[in-house]
């Protein structure tokens, strides 16, 4: 009898996701899919609103990564107000925005590694679910968990200082920013007032996190190198000289051999190079590179992709780690899913170094905050969000109202890679197995979690987000079903 196994939703991943695995009569995996349940219609929602509202409005999309949308929308509206396509802001405005962005990268990546990925690394995906979570990490390695909490808090403090507030920050506006830092705010972040929340500690703890991972890697090389490994293209922004740049750059894509498929593409021209495919079984689209077509043009985005497209990292400690990381694959593009965690931690260190450098830069106290020029009708803002390249594209009428919006979020870019990851692991773990254990199912989720997908968990009101696991036979009849709500101990 053909069986279909459904993991719904994927644990420890934002928002709603449902994994369907179809086994044929021999117990082989015949098909697997990741179904994304995301909020729809946001592009239509912003239409008719004044363009200057966009950087605040778009934060409604997601409470997990609002700063990324805030900055991408602001970058798009910079073009609309004639402030240029990324290089035209005042030094103070660009540096405040960069500081905000690095704070976001730092806290998001820290959270992902310590609370989403490290339970699997510390305990293994076969461990009991009651242990395989952040509380288990706190019990097994208190120092690691305590530092993670403080790293998160530091990133949040950077965001609050630069965006103006924690919720619906208004710091980035079309043409620049509406505030710089006061000397007191700068000192609090740079020096920490004698406490542990200072820039030097963040660099030091980032190095500690990398040491933790590299130690783990040495002991579990076979798993880390072999788990969910498959070749792909990779896409990100890079600085014009090829450096890793998470805030601004040109588009570059490389294939599995490192050959450049796309290079030095202005973000304003992205539509010339990308298409989005719709598939009947998913609400989320499947972007691809136009010149390669839908079958071969899919690509990864995010930390693994960024360290494949960039030539170097322009901060010294992260650059040294980058060199060690590249040596692990002999300098070739890295297609190893679990190396995403390594790449993510190198970005944490890079973000920490960048924040320290910016906090030592007097421009962040400056008073020249905005520029304006000739009004434009269309603006595109691209950004390397924690999860990957984020596209915001708007058209604005003469009446200053938004006429069109197109958003391609990082997780959408990774839709095809995540599906392939599910398929890859499902075939390895579930083929020919008579008894499906929770650890096997969690292994599928481990592969998805490496991409740190954000599935638009914009609301989280108490009592929602049921987890449903449904086993269907070939005729679609329910064989078995498990339900779990947020906040209920898993049994």
């Amino acid at each position, binding site marked *: 009898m053909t069986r279909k196994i459904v993991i719904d*939703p994927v*644990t*420890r*991943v*934002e*928002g709603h996701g449902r994994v369907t695995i179809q086994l044929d009569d021999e117990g082989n995996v015949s098909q697997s899919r990741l179904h994304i349940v995301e*909020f729809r219609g*946001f592009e239509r*929602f912003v239409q008719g609103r004044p363009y200057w509202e966009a950087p605040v*409005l778009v*934060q*409604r*999309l997601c*409470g*997990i990564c*609002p700063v990324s949308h805030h900055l991408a929308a602001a970058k798009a509206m910079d073009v609309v107000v004639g402030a240029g396509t990324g290089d035209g802001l005042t030094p103070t405005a660009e540096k405040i925005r960069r500081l905000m962005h690095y704070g976001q990268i730092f806290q998001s990546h820290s*959270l*992902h590694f*310590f*609370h*989403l990925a490290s339970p699997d690394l510390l305990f293994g995906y076969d461990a009991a*679910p*009651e242990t*395989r*979570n*952040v*509380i*288990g990490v*706190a*019990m097994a390695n*208190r120092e690691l*968990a*305590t530092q*993670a*909490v*403080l790293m*998160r*808090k530091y990133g*949040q403090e950077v965001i609050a200082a630069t965006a103006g507030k*924690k*919720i*619906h920050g208004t710091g980035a506006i079309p043409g620049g920013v509406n505030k710089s830092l006061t000397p007191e705010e700068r000192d609090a972040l740079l020096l920490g007032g004698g406490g542990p929340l200072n820039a030097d500690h963040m660099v030091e703890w980032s190095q500690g996190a990398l040491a933790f991972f590299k130690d783990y890697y040495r002991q579990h090389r076979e798993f880390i190198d072999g788990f969910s490994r498959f070749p792909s293209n990779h896409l990100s922004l890079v600085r014009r000289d090829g450096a890793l740049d998470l805030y601004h750059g040109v588009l570059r894509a490389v294939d599995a051999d490192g050959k450049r498929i796309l290079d030095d593409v202005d973000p304003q021209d992205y539509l010339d190079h990308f298409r989005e495919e719709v598939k009947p079984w998913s609400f989320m689209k499947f972007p691809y590179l136009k010149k390669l077509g839908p079958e071969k043009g899919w690509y990864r985005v995010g930390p693994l992709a960024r360290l494949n497209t960039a030539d170097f990292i322009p901060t010294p400690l992260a650059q040294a780690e980058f060199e060690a990381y590249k040596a692990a694959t002999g300098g070739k593009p890295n297609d190893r899913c679990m190396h995403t965690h390594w790449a993510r931690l190198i970005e944490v260190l890079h973000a920490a170094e960048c924040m320290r450098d910016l906090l030592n830069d007097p421009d962040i106290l400056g008073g020249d905050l905005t520029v304006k020029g000739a009004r434009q009708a269309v603006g595109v803002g691209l950004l390397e969000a924690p999860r990957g390249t984020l596209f915001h594209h708007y058209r604005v009428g003469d009446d200053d109202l938004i006429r069109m919006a197109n958003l391609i979020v990082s997780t959408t870019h990774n839709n095809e890679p995540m599906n392939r990851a599910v398929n890859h692991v499902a075939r390895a773990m579930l083929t020919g197995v008579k008894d499906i254990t929770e650890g096997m199912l969690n292994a599928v989720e481990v592969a998805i979690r490496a991409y740190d997908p*954000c599935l638009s*968990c*914009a*609301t*989280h*009101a*108490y*009592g*929602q*987000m049921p*987890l449903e696991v449904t086993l269907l036979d070939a005729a679609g009849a329910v064989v078995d079903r498990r339900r*779990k*709500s*947020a*906040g*209920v*101990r*898993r049994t």
Partner: protein
Amino acid sequence: MSSDSSRVGLKPLLIYGYGNPGRQDDGVGVALAEELEAWARAEGISGLAFDSNYQLNAEDALAVAEARAVVFVDAARGGAEPFAFKRLEPRGEIGFSTHAMSPESVLALAGELYGARPPAWLLAIRGESWEPNEPPTAAALSHLAAAREFLREWLRQEPLGCPDSLPGQPM
């Protein structure tokens, strides 16, 4: 609760509202925390701390550890109208998403990392709609008003410096 100087040095009672104000009724928790902060400031009431965010997360274990008691305020998709008020216990559970933690797991993390176990409550205000709009619905605003009056009265009854005997019965 008062501005009595003998409260100086006591940890504050933390009122933490969370949710997305850009999603209609999901923002009532944040709204209540902000309203009560303004009220406490206007009345000269000390001994309270306020915080708000889109969702609870690991770093909030630190805020919990620095409080003598905690009231979490959130919107609810179901449950009692206009609100439910219940005592919480730390629970080392796995939530659906650890990018957004439950209040019980934040309490458990505070206990595990800092040895802090303050008494805690959840004020769950019933919401009706979650579209990407502002402000909340009329129904949710009515529930919010009832919750505000309840919590103000509850805070007025709080005994001085006796966190173990804080009043408040589950509804």
